[in-house]
C-alpha cells in the first residue's frame, strides 16, 4: 500500500498535516499529566478526594510522559519509510497486523505488572456495589496475592471456603487469638472445591501453610455445571488443567466454548480481567444505579428456586473430583489441610439433605484417611449453635460467628500445643 502513496492521496495528506504539528503530542502528554497527576489518579482509583494537592506537577514522571508522547510523531514518521520498505521486501506479510500483535503482547505484559494490577483491583474494589460481594472478595484476593508476592509470611493459616466461612469467622478476632501465626483470608463467595482448585495460584499455598477449609453437603450439590464467570478471573495454568480433569470428556465437549474461554483466560490477563474492566467502564465516577424495578419472581418460581437450592439436592461428581485433586495438590506441595464441616440451620430439615450430609460426611472421612488430612465433622464440633445463631439457613449471624471463631481458635491452639500434625 505504502508504495502506491502519492501526495494526491487524501489519507497521506492528512498524515503529513498531523505530523507537521508534532508539538501537539507532547503538549497532550503534559495536559494529561496535569489532569491525572498530583494524586488525582490515585484518588480516582479509590474514589476519594485528592489527598495530596501539594505534589509538584513538574516531577520526573511528568517529563517521562511528555518524552513518551514526543516519541509518537517520531515513530510515526519513521514508520512511513519503514512500512514502504517492508511492503516492498515482503508484500505478502501483513506487517501492521504482525506489529499490532507485538503491541498487544506488550500491553499484556504491562497489565501483569504489580503497579497496574494494584491500581486496577483497587479501582474495581472501590466500585463494587452493595450486592457485588464476589467482586469485592475477588479484588481483595488479587490484591492480597500481590502483597504476598513481596512478603515472606511465615507458616500462614490459609482460610478457604464459601460464604459460610466469610459469615462464620471473625478474621480480626481469629488473627488476634492465634498470634503470631498470620491468617490469610482466601475464602470467597461460592468457593466450592472446583473453584478453590481453579484459584490455586492465588491461594498462595506453600510447604509450611496450614489450610483451613469449610465444606458442607451444599458444596457438592446443585452447583452450576461449568461456572465460567467465577473461574475466568482466577484462571491460571496452575489451576486450569486440574479443573478440566474434573470433568468427563463428554462434559468437556458439552462445555467446549467455556473450556476455550477458560484456557484463553489462563493465558491472557487481558481476557481474565474483562468482566471487571466492565465495572470500571460503567462506574467510572462511582457506583450508580437507576431505580429499575426488578422483575419479581412469582410465588411458584420462588418456591421452586428455594426447593432446588436447598431441598432437591443433586450430587455434582466434578466437585468430588475437584476436592480429590485439591487434596492431592496440597499433599504434593507439603501443606497440611484441615477440613471443617460447615453447619446448617437446624430449621432446614429435610430427608434428602440429611441423607446427603451423612453420605458426604462418610465420604470425607474416607478421603481424610486416604489423603492424609484432618476432617472435623459437625458432630465433633463443640459449638452448640442455636436457632438464633443463624442469619438464614446456612449463614451464621454475629453471635454464631463469635462462637464459631472461638471454637476454631481454641481448636488451632490445642493442635499447636499438642504439636499434632503441625508443620
Amino acid at each position: 500500500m505504502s508504495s502506491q502513496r502519492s501526495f494526491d492521496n487524501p489519507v497521506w495528506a492528512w498524515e503529513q498535516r498531523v505530523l507537521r504539528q508534532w508539538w501537539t503530542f507532547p503538549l497532550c502528554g503534559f495536559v494529561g499529566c496535569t489532569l491525572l497527576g498530583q494524586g488525582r489518579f490515585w484518588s480516582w482509583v479509590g474514589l476519594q478526594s485528592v489527598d495530596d494537592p501539594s505534589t509538584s506537577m513538574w516531577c520526573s514522571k511528568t517529563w517521562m510522559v511528555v518524552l513518551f508522547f514526543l516519541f509518537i510523531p517520531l515513530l510515526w514518521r519513521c514508520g512511513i519509510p519503514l512500512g514502504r520498505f517492508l511492503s516492498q521486501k515482503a508484500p505478502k506479510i501483513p506487517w501492521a497486523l504482525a506489529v499490532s500483535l507485538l503491541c498487544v503482547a506488550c500491553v499484556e505484559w504491562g497489565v501483569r505488572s504489580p503497579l497496574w494490577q494494584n491500581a486496577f483491583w483497587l479501582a474495581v474494589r472501590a466500585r463494587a456495589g452493595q450486592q457485588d460481594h464476589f467482586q469485592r472478595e475477588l479484588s481483595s484476593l488479587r490484591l492480597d496475592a500481590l502483597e504476598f508476592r513481596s512478603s515472606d509470611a511465615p507458616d500462614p493459616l490459609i482460610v478457604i471456603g464459601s460464604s459460610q466461612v466469610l459469615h462464620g469467622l471473625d478474621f480480626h478476632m481469629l488473627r488476634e487469638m492465634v498470634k503470631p501465626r498470620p491468617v490469610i483470608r482466601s475464602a470467597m463467595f461460592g468457593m466450592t472445591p472446583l473453584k478453590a482448585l481453579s484459584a490455586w495460584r492465588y491461594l498462595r499455598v506453600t510447604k509450611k501453610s496450614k489450610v483451613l477449609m469449610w465444606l458442607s453437603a451444599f458444596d457438592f450439590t446443585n452447583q452450576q455445571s461449568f461456572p465460567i464467570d467465577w473461574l475466568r478471573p482466577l484462571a491460571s495454568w496452575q489451576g486450569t488443567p486440574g479443573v478440566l480433569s474434573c470433568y468427563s470428556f463428554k462434559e468437556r465437549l458439552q462445555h467446549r466454548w467455556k473450556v476455550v474461554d477458560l484456557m484463553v483466560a489462563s493465558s491472557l490477563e487481558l481476557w481474565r480481567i474483562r468482566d471487571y474492566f466492565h465495572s470500571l467502564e460503567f462506574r467510572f465516577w462511582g457506583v450508580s444505579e437507576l431505580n429499575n424495578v426488578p422483575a419479581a419472581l412469582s410465588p411458584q418460581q420462588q418456591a421452586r428456586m428455594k426447593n432446588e437450592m436447598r431441598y432437591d439436592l443433586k450430587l455434582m461428581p466434578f466437585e468430588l473430583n475437584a476436592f480429590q485433586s485439591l487434596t492431592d495438590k496440597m499433599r504434593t506441595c507439603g501443606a497440611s489441610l484441615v477440613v471443617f464441616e460447615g453447619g446448617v440451620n437446624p430449621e432446614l430439615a429435610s430427608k434428602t439433605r440429611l441423607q446427603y450430609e451423612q453420605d458426604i460426611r462418610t465420604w470425607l472421612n474416607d478421603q481424610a484417611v486416604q489423603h492424609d488430612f484432618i476432617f472435623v465433622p459437625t458432630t465433633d464440633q463443640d459449638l452448640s449453635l442455636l436457632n438464633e445463631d443463624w442469619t438464614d439457613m446456612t449463614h451464621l449471624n454475629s453471635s454464631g460467628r463469635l462462637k464459631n471463631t472461638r471454637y476454631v481458635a481454641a481448636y488451632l491452639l490445642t493442635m499447636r500445643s499438642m504439636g499434632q500434625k503441625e508443620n
Partner: protein
Amino acid sequence: MLFNSMSFLVFFLAVWGIYLRLPHRKQNVLLLLASYFFYGCWDYRFLGLIAFSTILDYGAGLRIAASENIRVRRGYLWISVVLNLGILGYFKYSNFFIENAEVLLQLLGITPHHWRLDIILPVGISFYTFQTMSYTIDVYRRQMSPCRSLIDFATYVAFFPQLVAGPIERASRLLPQIQHTRTVTWAAVQSGFWLIMWGLFKKAVIADNLAGLVDQGFNAGHYQAGSVLMSVYAFAFQIYCDFSGYSDMARGLARWLGIELMVNFNNPYFAVNPSDFWRRWHISLSTWLRDYLYIPLGGNRKGPVRTYVNLSLTMLLGGIWHGAAWTFVIWGVYQGGLLMVHRAWSYGRKETSTERWTWLRRILMFHAVCMGWLLFRAQSLGQVGSMFAAFWRAPTWDLWAANSALAIFLVSWPLWVVQYLQERTKNLDVPAQLSLFPRTALYATVTIMLLVMGNAGGKAFIYFQF
C-alpha cells in the same frame, strides 16, 4: 448461529477451507448447502419457506422473461409480489392487525373474542423477501435477464453472510458474481479480515456494551433528563454499531469468498440533513424503497404536494418494514416528516459548504435522528411521553448519566476517530491506506478492546427481529 460466536467461526473456517479447493460450480453448491445449514441452525422449519420463496421467484422470473405479452408478464409479477408480501404480512403483521382490529371493535362497543395467532417470525424474512422481489421486478422491467440456474438463484437468495440481516443485495449486483468464476486474492483476504474485525468490534465492544446501558435507561422506573439523554445517545450508537457491524462482517466474510457486497452504511451520523442521512443509513433498504416504491409512485416528478405524499408514504412503509408496532409506524412518519421539512426548507436554496455550518448541521441532524431513535426503541407511546416529559419535569444530571457519558466515549472513541478520517478523506478504506504506525495503533487498539471489553456471550443482532 451468530457471526460473533465460536460455532460460526468453526463453521465458516470449515466452509472456507473446502470452498477454496472446489471449482466454481461446486463452490456454488457448497455455498447453497452451507447457507441452508446456517439458516437451519436458527430454525430448520423455515427452510421450506425460503425454498418456496426461491422457487416462486425463480419460476416467475423465467415466465416473465419468456413472455412478450404484457398482461402475462404483469400477471406473473403480481403473483410473485402478492405471495411474497402475503408471506411477509402473515408472519410479521398478522397479530398486529388482529390486536388493532380488536381495539377498534372495542371502541365501537363490540367485545371481541381475544385471540392471537401462534406465529414465530422467521429470521431475515424481511431481507430475503425484498431481495427476491427486486429480482422479479428487475426482470419484469427488462433491467436484467433471468437466472437460468436454480442453484445459482437459490445461492443468491440464501447467501449466508447476508441472509439474516442484509445488505439487501440486488440481483443485478450479486447474481453475476455468483454466476461467474471468482478468485480469492490475498489482498481481499486481508481487507476482509479487517472488515470482520471492525464489524466484530462495533458489535461486541460498542453495541453489546451499550445494550446494558440502554436497557437500564429505558426501563428506569423514574426518568431524569440526563439519564434519558444518555440512554438515547447510547441507543443511537448501539443500533448503528449493531447493524453496521453485522454489515461489515457480512462484507468481510463475502470478500473471503470472492464476493463483493454493497456498502450498507456510510458514516450516517455525519449526515447534514435528512436526505443525506438516508443516503448513508441502511443504504440497501433506502435505495430499494427509492427504486421500487418512491420512483414508481412518481418520485418528485409530479409536483411538490405529490412529492411530499410519496416521501411520507415511502418512509411510512420503511417504518412498518422494521416491525409491527405503532412506535415503528410513528418513527416512519417522523422520518417522512423530517424529509418533507428538509425538502420544503431547501427548496430553491443553495447547499452551504462552510465547514463550521457543516458541523452545526451534523450536530442538529444527529439530535433529530436521536429523537427518532427514542420513538424506535420505546415500548409504548406512554413511555415516549414520560421520557420526553423528563426534560422539563426533572432536568437533572446525575451520577448514572455522568458514568454513561464516559462509558459511551470509552467504548466508541475508535469509531469516532476512524469515521472522522473516513469522512475527512471521503474514503471508507482509510484503515488500509494508513501508514504503518497509525495502522498498527488502530489494529492493536481494536484487538485489545475486543479482548478486554468485547462481549463474549454472542448477543443476537437487533436487526434479526426485523
